């Protein structure tokens, strides 16, 4: 079983459209994991049935029991996050600022502070339109701990893949280089970098590749909209050569991506087949590279 993670650094380069198309090509032989948990979109193309859903608890927030509080102010003294506020004569927690470190609860002499575990989202196991299984999630509004939710989604996907002896786990990652991305890379077998030939796309890809190198993972690259700047596309390709990144494929600037999305379809189910051919070749290449 191979776990393939698709990331980009920069947002909006086409990760999800491409991952969803690979999911169609892999059919029942893959488990899909949408790890862009704070803006998950893949369900719009793969039509999961949300068959099973579970709450996700992670992290804590402090709660002060006013009946027990002796108003000594120790909690406010130790808090590094300005999360304890004195209003009139009582101490209150500002939820948005609370990091859940529990220092205030530790030092409260009246034991008036409870650390309450937070419901930060939901995760789902679904059957999608290929009859394959997909694990996905929805992070609660403004919640932190997206890294932990990503870890949970990946773990569930791995369990399913192992139990049903699938060959692939396809992981759609989130943009950036922070905790959800780090979490999506851990345990991966192969990384696909989806980039675009813009100064920012190239810059962001190089940064996220540095992170991939920290994990010592093999990587391949897909250049989307390669024709909007052939010069930068060339630079991306030589960067890939110098860093032993497999060049998988490149896609032209094509509004078919959007048209397919508007109909809730992946690119392999839509259009005249030009993009589909590139995708079929790409997937074949990825299968060989990860074999």
């Amino acid at each position: 079983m191979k776990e393939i993670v698709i990331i980009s650094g920069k947002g909006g380069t086409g990760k999800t459209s491409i991952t969803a198309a690979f999911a169609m090509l892999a059919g029942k032989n893959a488990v899909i994991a949408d790890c862009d948990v704070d803006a998950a979109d893949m369900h719009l193309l793969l039509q999961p049935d949300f068959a099973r859903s579970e709450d996700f608890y992670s992290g804590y927030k402090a709660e002060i029991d006013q009946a027990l509080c002796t108003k000594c102010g120790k909690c406010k003294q130790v808090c590094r996050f300005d999360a304890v506020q004195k209003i009139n004569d009582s101490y209150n927690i500002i939820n948005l600022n609370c990091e859940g470190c529990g220092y205030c609860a530790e030092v409260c002499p009246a034991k008036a502070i409870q650390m309450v575990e937070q419901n930060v989202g939901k995760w789902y196991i679904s059957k999608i339109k290929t009859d394959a299984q997909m694990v996905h999630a929805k992070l609660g509004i403004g919640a932190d701990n997206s890294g932990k939710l990503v870890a949970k989604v990946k773990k569930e996907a791995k369990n399913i893949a192992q139990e049903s002896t699938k060959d692939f786990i396809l992981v759609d990652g989130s943009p950036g280089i922070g905790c959800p991305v780090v979490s999506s890379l851990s345990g991966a077998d192969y990384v696909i970098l989806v980039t675009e030939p813009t100064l920012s796309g190239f810059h962001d890809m190089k940064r996220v590749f540095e992170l991939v190198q920290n994990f010592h993972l093999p990587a391949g690259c897909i250049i989307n909209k390669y024709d909007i700047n052939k010069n930068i596309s060339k630079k991306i390709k030589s960067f890939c050569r110098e860093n032993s990144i497999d060049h998988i494929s490149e896609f032209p600037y094509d509004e078919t991506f959007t048209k397919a999305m508007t109909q809730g379809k992946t690119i392999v189910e839509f259009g005249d087949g030009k993009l589909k051919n590139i995708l079929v070749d790409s997937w074949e290449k990825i299968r060989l590279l990860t074999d």
Partner: protein
Amino acid sequence: MKITIASGKGGTGKTTLATNLAYLLSQKSPVILADLDVEEPNSGFFIKGKKIQEKKVFKMIPEWDKEKCVLCGNCQRVCKFNAVIKLREEILVFNQLCHSCFACSELCPQNALPMKSYEVGKITEFEQNNLHFVEGKLNVGEEQAVPLIKETIDFANQNYSSDILRIFDAPPGTSCPVIEATKDADYIILITEPTPFGLHDLKLAVEVMIELKKDFGVVINRFGIGNNDVIKYCEDENIFLIGKIPNMKKAAEAYAKGELLSESIPEIKSAILNIIKNLKLCEVLA
């Protein structure tokens, strides 16, 4: 006035709007543009000012003092982030996981975990006439964007008078980095694309703004692709549609090269000017 440009989905044009808005407004009066997308800051490709200063940013983490430690394990017990682990004969600190709460350090009965500073990124300040540009950039390998976002905002507050307009370029998503980049703003511009992904993530971003009790409006970028569902959603929900930026392949090509679109493409310039006009009408801008 502080305006944050945010979006649920990545790649919808936050940086394009932030840089062009800041650039055009700075032709009349001073503007501070802060790039708070510290994981992947990109505004600097479009704003080419003179570098004024660069400052390293540190966070505080505990450092194990082997001589003083009696291996009581209290540090591991109080740490809610699994950043301090007690092994049989050693205390391990995982720098990236530490939230700098000081609990392990200050509650250590032996004072064996003094706090030291640890570099997580840098802030660079540039100047281009009336446009002051501040960029936060996280070191690769660091997982927490929030402390650096906070430092970048603080840097702007300390270095400039509070009556200068601030424009914040936020990270994508809806989780803690976005909250940090929006919670002190007076007005939020949510930028999206007229596609199913754009609409879906716009709805998530709107939920966040309602939760934060923020005043906000919407800009549609790449207008002309996709469908009319975003416009319909804004009408149904009574959300102010500030403006639309047209979809043009030549805009993508100019963006690729790092050109400021309002300089190179007249249609984009007039779209941004129209956004400024509408922000003035609703008194977000003076």
